[in-house]
């Protein structure tokens, strides 16, 4: 298949774009059109998802040539027959199939040429957009003369290429600055954020909005597309007859902005500001945003020819970067982890009960009620319950402020929540998730209480970050119904859910837990049971190393900048404060017992001294840093430094350079991850990468620990670890699987 793809690319590059005698005999499968009076309606209908695949581009070119050649046609409507998408983007496989930057550059140039023809079309083209209009699809739309979008919740516009380490390679970096002005264009292209239809209208990205329709003589989806087409056909006629002007009268603000932008030094100032901002946010670890600035600049300062050339060449270069490959890998991984590989559960969970209305419990309740799951939130005290219910309310109310939901939707979501102190109604629960304090005896007590009141089919899920599930399930009468569901805090923001199965957990229980997690909008990894499962187990040695680094006299701020400089979104010292020093101490002690000296490093006593002083991290106001409500600036907690003084270690100069410290932290993380795969805790490297990035903030530009090993080289990593091993011993001993990969460079975790 890859060969045929390449062949198509070659065909295209040879300029064989127009309809050939041969292809005319083949019926088109992706694009068709109908002439409605003097308007040609072109419908895109890829058998799977509408992407700018080679096939789609070829058929589109054919159709466009026929339409341009047809003198009866005065104007054109471009629409998708798919309810949920206009064009979801370029075909990623098409880009991944290329082996050199030049190949990708050629792909980009073909796209540029095609859209240039669209832009210069003598017959006005109306893009009628319903559903996702992203990436290449968005670039297609903005090359058209006029855009009409539905107000559907599924309709989003944007260029998310930057999130895949790429740039909009089919004219996006050239057209957007002209359409939106420099500041807005940078905002759209550099953030890659999705733009909702109403916002797009305000920005001037679309000219007209069409409402979604309810039930009529056809299904709402079908009729909405028909309606969009009717409106678009009318608009196309109006454009052809010049009743609708193509250029809108510019507003005063727009005129002022244009005037200011006409000064080169103003533009230069903007480039500099944006560049600085990008460097600050990415630490220079992500090449795509910088290349985007370069392309925009080339287009505006040196003219379109230079701009388009810069765009296509940089697109090619970016596609070959490890960062882009890592990000695309994560994208694919995320898609995989949004599927239930355990099949459809026998019984759908409609009634959920959450035990404990703390941060986690209330968070779990929040992401359940807004998906229509009836949820009981139970706590033992009225104060605790009230705090938890307020958290759910606030979480949903904040969404109304951002206008992502209406106040009416908030109210109707909240009607799914029942707060209570007793076990009333648990007899009808399909699943209970307990989120009580991390203490085995309390968990045992709760499990027994719950099992006494729930129906036989009800699943008992336990939310714990480190306690082995089999230990919790030891007192269960029905261990096949017991499973671990490890949520990450804050639950409504963190995408990851780590599901832990014991060897007694039934497949249907797992399928059910995954189904609930997916409904809650989570990205899910399913791992085996053991101390710390996967995520906590990877994090613990890294934090142990971080403590040692602090003991060696590295300032918390310096430690943070070393970790963020490696690509972690949150620095190690800050992370410890976020997780909670008490939790870190607790976990370090537990896992230390389970894994022995290998999990050593920093002195746990230091953490305990911190906890004794009340320095439990952000939640207590003090940890490595001092937190003051309303203040963004954080000062280092000097009292913590005083405690550190008494645990001071002398650093070994041979392994204490900035780079050494970074690799000491990262290699322990990565080695533990590989060991988890070796031991079967992890089912596959994909879930390992997704878990590390989405749950622990492993640098996304590295794509996760496994992709990092692949790209960095297992041999080089082992070499570094051996150096550290000489000083610190078994904490840095590479695991067997890592050694296997080091020995044989052809061995890769990701093919």
């Amino acid at each position, binding site marked *: 298949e890859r060969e045929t793809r390449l062949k198509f690319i070659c065909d295209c590059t040879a300029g064989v774009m127009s309809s050939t005698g041969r292809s005319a005999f083949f019926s088109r499968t992706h694009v068709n059109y109908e002439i409605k009076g003097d308007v040609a309606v072109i419908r895109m209908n890829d058998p799977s998802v509408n992407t700018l695949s080679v096939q789609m581009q070829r058929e589109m070119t054919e159709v466009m040539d026929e339409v341009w050649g047809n003198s009866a046609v005065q104007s054109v409507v471009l629409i998708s027959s798919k309810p949920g998408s206009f064009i979801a983007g370029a075909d990623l496989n098409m880009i991944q199939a290329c082996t050199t930057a030049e190949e990708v550059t050629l792909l980009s140039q073909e796209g540029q040429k095609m859209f240039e023809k669209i832009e210069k079309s003598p017959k006005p083209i109306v893009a009628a957009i319903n559903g996702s209009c992203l990436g290449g699809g968005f670039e297609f739309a903005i090359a058209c003369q006029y855009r009409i979008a539905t107000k559907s919740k599924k309709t989003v516009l944007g260029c998310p290429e930057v999130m895949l380490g790429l740039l909009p390679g089919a004219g996006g970096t050239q057209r957007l600055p002209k359409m939106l002005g420099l500041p807005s264009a940078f905002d759209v292209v550099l953030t890659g954020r999705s733009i909702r239809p109403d916002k797009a209208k305000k920005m001037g990205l679309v000219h*007209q909005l*069409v*409402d*979604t*329709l*309810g*039930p*009529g*003589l*056809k299904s*709402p989806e079908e*009729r909405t597309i028909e*309606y969009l087409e009717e*409106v678009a056909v*009318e*608009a196309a006629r109006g454009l052809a007859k010049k009743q609708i002007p193509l250029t809108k009268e510019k507003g005063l603000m727009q005129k002022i902005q244009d005037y200011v932008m006409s000064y080169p030094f103003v533009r230069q100032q903007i480039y500099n500001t944006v560049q600085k901002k990008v460097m600050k946010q990415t630490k220079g670890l992500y090449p795509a945003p910088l290349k985007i600035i370069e392309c925009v600049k080339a287009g505006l300062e040196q003219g379109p020819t230079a701009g388009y050339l810069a765009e296509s060449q940089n697109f090619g270069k970016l596609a070959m970067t490890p960062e882009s490959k890592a990000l695309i890998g994560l994208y694919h991984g995320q898609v995989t982890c949004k599927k239930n590989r355990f099949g459809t559960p026998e019984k759908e969970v409609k009634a959920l009960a959450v035990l404990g209305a703390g941060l986690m419990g209330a968070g779990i309740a929040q992401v359940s009620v807004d998906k229509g799951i009836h949820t009981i939130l139970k706590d033992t005290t009225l104060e605790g319950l009230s705090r938890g219910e307020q958290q759910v309310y606030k979480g949903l109310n904040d969404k109304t402020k951002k206008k992502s939901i*209406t106040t*009416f939707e908030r109210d109707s979501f909240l009607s799914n929540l029942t707060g209570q102190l007793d076990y009333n109604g648990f007899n009808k629960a399909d699943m209970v998730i307990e989120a009580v304090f991390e203490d085995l005896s309390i968990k045992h007590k709760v499990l027994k209480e719950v099992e006494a009141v729930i129906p036989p089919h009800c699943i008992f899920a336990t939310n714990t970050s480190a306690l082995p599930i089999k230990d919790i399930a030891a007192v269960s009468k029905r261990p096949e119904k017991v499973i671990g569901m490890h949520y990450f805090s804050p639950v409504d923001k963190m995408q990851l859910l780590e599901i832990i199965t014991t060897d007694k957990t039934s497949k249907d229980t797992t399928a059910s837990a995954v189904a609930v997690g997916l409904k809650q909008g989570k990205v899910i990894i399913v791992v085996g049971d053991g101390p710390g499962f996967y995520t906590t187990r990877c994090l613990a040695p890294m934090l142990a190393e971080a403590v040692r680094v602090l003991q060696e006299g590295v300032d918390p701020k310096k430690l943070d900048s070393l970790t963020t400089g490696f690509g972690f979104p949150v620095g190690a010292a800050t992370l410890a404060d976020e997780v909670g020093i008490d939790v870190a101490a607790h976990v370090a002690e537990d896992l230390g017992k389970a894994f022995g000296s290998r999990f050593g490093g920093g002195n746990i006593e230091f953490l305990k001294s911190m906890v004794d002083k009340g320095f439990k991290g952000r939640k207590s106001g003090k940890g490595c840093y001092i937190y003051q409500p309303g203040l963004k600036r954080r000062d280092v907690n000097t009292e913590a430094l005083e405690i550190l003084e008494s645990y001071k270690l002398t650093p070994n100069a041979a392994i204490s350079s900035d780079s050494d410290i970074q690799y000491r932290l990262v290699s322990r993380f990565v080695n533990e991850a590989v060991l988890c795969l070796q031991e079967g805790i992890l089912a596959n490297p994909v879930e390992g990468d997704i878990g590390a990035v989405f749950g622990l903030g492993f640098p996304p530009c590295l794509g996760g620990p496994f992709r990092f090993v692949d790209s960095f080289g297992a041999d080089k990593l082992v070499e570094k670890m051996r150096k550290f091993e000489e000083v610190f011993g078994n904490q840095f001993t590479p695991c067997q699987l890592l050694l296997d990969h080091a020995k044989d460079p052809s061995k890769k975790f990701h093919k």
Partner: protein
Amino acid sequence: MLTTNQSSYDLFCFILQRSKKEKCTFHFHNTTVNIFVAKSKKTLAKPGVKNIVLVDGVRTPFLQSGTIYADLMPHDLARAALQGLLNRTGLPKDAVDYIVYGTVIQEVKTSNVAREAALGAGFSDKTPAHTVTMACISSNQAMTTAVGLIAAGQCDAVVAGGVEFMSDVPIRHSRRMRKTMLSLNKAKTLGARLSLLGSIRLAHLAPELPAVAEFSTAETMGHSADRLAAAFGVSRLEQDEFALRSHTLAKKAQDSGLLSDVISFKVPGKDIVSKDNGIRPSTMEQMAKLKPAFIKPHGTVTAANSSFLTDGASAVLIMSEEKALAMGYKPKAYLRDFVYVSQDPKDQLLLGPTYATPKVLEKSGLTLNDIDVFEFHEAFAGQIMANLKAMESDWFAQTYMGRKTKVGAPPMEKFNSWGGSLSLGHPFAATGCRLVTTVAHRLQKEGGQYGLVAACAAGGQGHAMVIEAYPQ
């Protein structure tokens, strides 16, 4: 099998009307039955159920808001309707057991407008009165409340009605301003008052205007009507044609004196008003010139094919048949079965008639063919056309209503033939009584047996009622 025995006849009819299929079976087996199939039932009277009658109904002229009624208050209009009813029926004021009145946009000073209007109209102060609200079917609710009171044996004579006054609506201070003003009441010292006054910002002075929008969806009704019309593929042309029909028929009815429910009203400081003033038959060309009012630029609902903001009030006298006859009245009609329905307030906001019609027909054991007179509330021409298309669609009936087949659309010659809300006007809470009184009058005039009232209302609700002619 066929006897003159009344009860077995009723039973027979009941069986016949259960479904068309059964009808056919009978049709083949027994030719005698054919007679009964071709004719409709003689009456919907049920053994053991009280007959409840409409004695009479009146309304003030319906005027475009901001015209001659502009300086009145809602209860003034309601008073006029109530007094008009008293004059028309010659009813002794103390013979009324209860008064129920509907209103939608409430004047805060007269929140129980029923009571204020009744007192002002000179009803006995011993007659209790309450106000109901259910958007555009408020006076339908008032009437069915009356029916309920009589059926339950609690009352024998009830006045029901509705009033809407759009020339003046409550415009509130902003929430912040209200809060400050309420705190000001409680402030004890001058200093506290001054500091509260000082906290007022310019933005707090912006008023809150009421909107004809759904609270749950924040969508205005016109916008929803436009979407509904689009969902059913109702064209602008169809809507304009229907609106023109409404105005033309209303004009004809007005000119031929058919709108006998309208009473004359001497407006203080102004002339006597005795005619609706919103009836304006236009031409298709003129109507086509209007721009869409809600969805721009491609919408189809315009000012010309929508009902307009109207001031007006209506009132009806409802009695048990025995009481009416005992007092020497000749009732106009029986009020029979009624239903209320509700559905999705977003996408099916105005489809009440589609849902209510088959339900009330089923309840009465009638089919659409049995109905001689249809009076549907015309909120928007697009809404009426959408409802007609929905009623004519098997797919819609099966997919959204859980029915096997469509109920069918009413034949246009029987439909709103004296005009409707689009032309006569639509004072929200007064329309229901107008519909019922019009059905009674049309049945008398046209000699039919059964009439059907149906209406949609904000909140995604709807109503339908079967009315039977009183033997003349």
